[in-house]
């Protein structure tokens, strides 16, 4: 059994004070993608993340319910398209989370 380094513990406590929501890598990836691009559709996110409809939908719902994402529905060729955008809350929390991750990684090498 591997032992956790004390530096890891200290850093993880720091991360623990942040949003647990972004601890899941798929949710973190969704937020990072939406910070790079203004908006992405459900299909595009599914294609890029290679997730199933159900799994992706669950992650997106969690982020939406926490106010990280704004959702807009439209139609293209009579088919519904759901667009996701990062809200200001999502953007600032992502920024803090990434900064803390970078600090933690930097500390433990």
């Amino acid at each position, binding site marked *: 059994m*591997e032992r*956790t*380094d004390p*530096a*890891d513990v200290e*850093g*993880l406590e720091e*991360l623990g004070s942040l949003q647990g929501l972004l601890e899941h*890598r798929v949710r*973190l*990836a969704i937020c*990072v*993608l939406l910070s*790079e*691009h*203004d*908006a*992405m*559709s*459900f*299909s*595009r*996110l599914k*294609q*890029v*993340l290679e997730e199933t409809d159900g799994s992706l939908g669950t992650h997106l719902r969690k982020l939406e319910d926490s106010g990280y994402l704004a959702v807009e529905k439209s139609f*293209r060729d009579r088919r519904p*398209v759901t*667009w996701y955008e990062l809200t200001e809350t999502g953007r600032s929390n992502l920024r803090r989370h990434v900064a803390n*991750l970078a600090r*933690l*990684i930097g500390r*433990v090498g």
Partner: protein
Amino acid sequence: MTDTDSIKDDIAYVRAVAERTGPGHVPAIYVLWAVICLCGFPLVDLVGPGSGLIGIYWLTAGPVGGLVTWWLAARAGVRDGQADRRTGKRWAGHFVGFFGVGLLGCLLAATGELSWSGLSSLWILLLALTYFLAGLHLDRRLMPVSLILAAGYLFTLYLPEYRFTTAGVLVAVALVVQGIRGTRERHGTD
């Protein structure tokens, strides 16, 4: 795996995912500008460098081409499910900047500081720089086109005949080739 390793693994995953969504590629935009250059550059050889027709052509084709480019990019964004309005503004900034500087450059010819033929060559050189910077900051596929434009600039100075026509043909071919290459690369990654 320790917790830190797990975090590093997650970051590697996020990075890999982010790399899958590079700049969008719209081959129609490359073809559009290939056609605009193919018609516009030879005008200098056909009607003479000082002709007002050249100004009319570029003052019309430039902005109209820009608007059509915007429309094509927006349409592709909707089709692909990825909207990049901020990136679109950066693209527009690059080429509006080029157009503005080019217009200011016309004063050099209007005041007699530069010949009209020299101004036409200067526009190609400015375009080469704009493509180079766009290749550096926005889409690396434009980098080879910038090199061809730089070669085209030299042709406009040193070729004995059909100087601008040669430059126009080369740039048009370079744009079409990069448009096709981009499409192939994209199909390879999708």
